[in-house]
């Protein structure tokens, strides 16, 4: 597409600030994050790099900024072919990056952070603080990015921290700015301010690469956009010539549609009731804005959505890692708020956490110890003084067999297993406790096909036996195929409810996930199953 521009004579070869062609990146674990991606950014434009989570956006800009090295491909900056071996090389070529997680030292002042590593000196030995403040003030005035050079970074709001990051890049001579999901942490007002500043920077010739998956923002400030999906290049477009629907279709979609064999669900009474849940995170941003839903026995209710729209906070609240600001969660009419983890388990809740190495297993303990960790207090496993090791062995051997955990022995350390088998250890423990409700958060992320298949089948059979399953997944394939019914989260709210997922299309899902469409409140309210 870009090449046709050149042939048409619309654009000259020298007009590109960044030309990344044929970029492929295969990580040592075999995952290909970028597959033959082209990324061409013209001088002086704001260019969006779009894609779902895991589409390869971050990897691509990490390669551009020298944090990762490409497996193959060519990079040209301002017409000069170079290999960017480190961030220092990138900075030297005028590339600056504003990371999503700020790279600032909290107890230092704004000015100190700005000049860190390039401190002005007096008498060759001492830092010239006056000069540092002056430099900061000058550059902040020049680019209209207002900051207080004397304030400590820990005392300033997020929006100002971001400006400090931009100033850090500018003072080091950047003329190509990469912003990695800059609005994810900002309030609406701060976002508006940032856009004004970015437009002003563009006016004076800066090139800006803007990573996002928010359609409205992209439409508002970018000139062109490049879309990635599953690590592949989906084309580059002029922002005003492509509709939001088209973008959504290009971004969201499945390459291989996988099907899970399951008979039709016969849902019974609701068992988990979530009522009007609201939650404000530690930065004061309201990430759950009145979520109500019910999960019924005998069905898998899926939660779909782009990551960062409140799903993770909901799961954290369900398992008592966070507390909601208002609203209620009831299981069989008992409130779960303020229940400890062991009480939750006793009520019949099982939990497959997204981060299995932190919350799912104790990785240096043995398979056996992990398998019985939730039932060790039961009489058959522990006597008055000593553990009943024969019973424990029997139980763990049985679980290892039932759940096909590949291992040398039950005494093997969990961390020695493959990802799929570690997840099977988690699943074996969680599914075998006869749960009423299973909360499965990304249950098959990063594990092999065999284990994925096994876990999905188990989820289906448990739901058919009468358990309620709440499935959270960013994997569109999984959430659409495995769920019996489905809600879509967008910006902390449910924007759609589908009682039956079998007729749902990718395109429709994409439009809801990216906030283009929204069902009526009445349709959404059906998820509470109160007529």
């Amino acid at each position: 597409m870009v090449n046709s521009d050149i042939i048409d004579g619309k654009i000259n070869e020298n007009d590109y600030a960044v030309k990344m062609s044929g970029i492929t990146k295969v990580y040592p674990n075999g995952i290909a994050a970028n597959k033959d991606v082209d990324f061409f950014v013209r001088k002086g434009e704001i260019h969006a790099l779009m894609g779902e989570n895991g589409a390869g956006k971050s990897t691509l800009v990490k390669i551009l900024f020298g944090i990762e090295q490409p497996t193959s491909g060519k990079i040209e900056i301002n017409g000069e072919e170079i290999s960017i071996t480190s961030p220092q090389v990138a900075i030297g070529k005028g590339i600056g990056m504003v990371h999503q997680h700020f790279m600032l030292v909290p107890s230092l002042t704004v000015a100190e952070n700005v000049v860190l590593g390039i401190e002005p000196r007096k008498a060759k030995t001492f830092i010239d603080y006056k000069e540092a403040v002056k430099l900061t003030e000058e550059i902040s005035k020049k680019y209209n990015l207002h900051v207080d050079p004397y304030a400590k970074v820990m005392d300033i709001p997020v929006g100002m921290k971001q400006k400090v990051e931009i100033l850090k890049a500018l003072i080091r001579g950047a003329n190509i700015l990469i912003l990695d999901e800059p609005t994810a942490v900002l309030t609406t007002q701060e976002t508006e301010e940032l856009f004004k500043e970015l437009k002003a920077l563009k006016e004076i010739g800066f090139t800006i690469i803007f990573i996002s998956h928010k359609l409205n923002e992209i439409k508002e400030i970018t000139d062109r956009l490049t879309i990635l999906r599953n690590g592949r290049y989906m084309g580059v477009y002029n922002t005003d010539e492509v509709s939001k629907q088209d973008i959504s279709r290009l971004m969201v979609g499945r390459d291989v549609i996988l099907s899970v064999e399951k008979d039709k669900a016969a849902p019974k009474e609701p068992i988990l009731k979530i009522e009007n849940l609201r939650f404000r995170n530690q930065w004061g941003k309201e990430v759950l804005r009145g979520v109500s839903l019910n999960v019924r026995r005998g069905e898998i209710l899926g939660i779909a959505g782009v990551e960062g729209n409140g799903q993770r906070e909901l799961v954290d609240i369900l398992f008592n890692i966070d507390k909601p600001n208002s609203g209620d969660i009831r299981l069989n009419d008992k409130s779960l708020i303020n229940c400890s983890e062991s009480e939750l388990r006793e009520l019949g809740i099982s939990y497959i956490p997204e981060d299995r190495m932190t919350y799912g297993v104790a990785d240096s303990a043995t398979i056996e110890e992990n398998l019985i960790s939730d039932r060790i207090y039961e009489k058959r496993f522990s006597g008055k003084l000593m553990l009943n090791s024969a019973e424990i062995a029997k139980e763990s051997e049985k679980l290892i067999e039932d759940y096909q955990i590949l291992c040398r022995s039950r005494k093997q350390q969990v961390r020695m297993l493959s990802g799929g088998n570690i997840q099977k250890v988690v699943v074996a423990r969680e599914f075998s406790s006869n749960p009423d409700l299973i909360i499965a958060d990304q249950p098959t992320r990063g594990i092999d096909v065999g284990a994925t298949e096994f876990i999905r089948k188990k989820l289906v059979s448990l739901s058919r036996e009468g358990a309620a399953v709440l499935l959270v997944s960013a994997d569109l394939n999984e959430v659409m195929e495995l769920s019996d019914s489905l809600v879509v989260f967008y910006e902390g709210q449910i924007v759609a409810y589908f009682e039956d997922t079998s007729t749902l299309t990718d395109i429709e899902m994409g439009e809801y996930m990216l906030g283009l469409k929204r069902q009526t409140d009445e349709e959404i309210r059906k998820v509470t199953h109160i007529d």
Partner: protein
Amino acid sequence: MQNVLNAMMTPSFGYAILRMTTPILFATLAAVIASKAGVSNIGIEGIMMFSALAGVIFSGMTKSWVVGLLSALVVGVFLGLMIGFFALKLNTDIVLAGIAVNTLGGGGTIFFLFLASGDRGASNSITSEIVPKINIPLIKDIPILGEVLSGHSGLTYFAFVCVILVYVLLYKTPLGLKMRAVGENRDAADSVGVSVNKISYIALALSGLLAGLAGAFMSMGYMKGFTVNMAAGRGFIGLAAQAMGQGEPIGGMLASLLFGFANAIAINLQGAISLSPQIIQSFPYILVIVSLVFYSLSTRNRLKRIKRAAIESDKTEAKDNS
């Protein structure tokens, strides 16, 4: 009790406080520099032992206190860098590397002492030198104050000079800024091209240098000659004083003075009251524990207040928005 109070009212008590403070102050500054740069140096005690011995052996051999002092410093820097090598290059836990140096300091010094002198307990057979005492002109003639402030080992004065030097290093120089940045957010420092490893090594070398000064004072000022285990926990007290002083050089100095004061009392009490000397000698350590408890209580309260204030402002903000 009257005896004790009388003893405390004499100028020699004031003199003793400064004398007792000196090694603790050096050790505290050693801990301050390391922790500011995010590399905790637990090995100060062990470094003190080795440096104390080095000072005695080399000043004895050359009959020059300058050579003795310099060799103590070289040993200190070397051990500091060694901790760095284990922790940064070989990826051992830095606390374990420090503990290893401490353990080595206990046994290793006896070994080297035996090699050098044939003794196992003290360096009696080596005639070593001390760092000269300095009488400060004018001040020495002031009654009482002169007796307290003048006539100390040169190292005592240098310890207080070091407080200023460390402060200036940390807060007025590019190196200090980089150290603080590395200590607080390595990724941030790294992302702007600051070499995290280099800064960590420099911090450990400087920390070792200060611990070396502490050791040199023990055998070339506080006493003349080396005895086994002569650091007697002062390296650890330095770590406590660093924590109490909130990791700042000035705060650390005040905490060191408090511990110096406790040490001086302990010495004065012996002979003045009829408690067993073991109990009296444990007084400074009890003070360490008590003051740390008070310190952590006060910080906890302060954190609580800050948190409460944050919640309050959050509430008003939420009200304003709605």
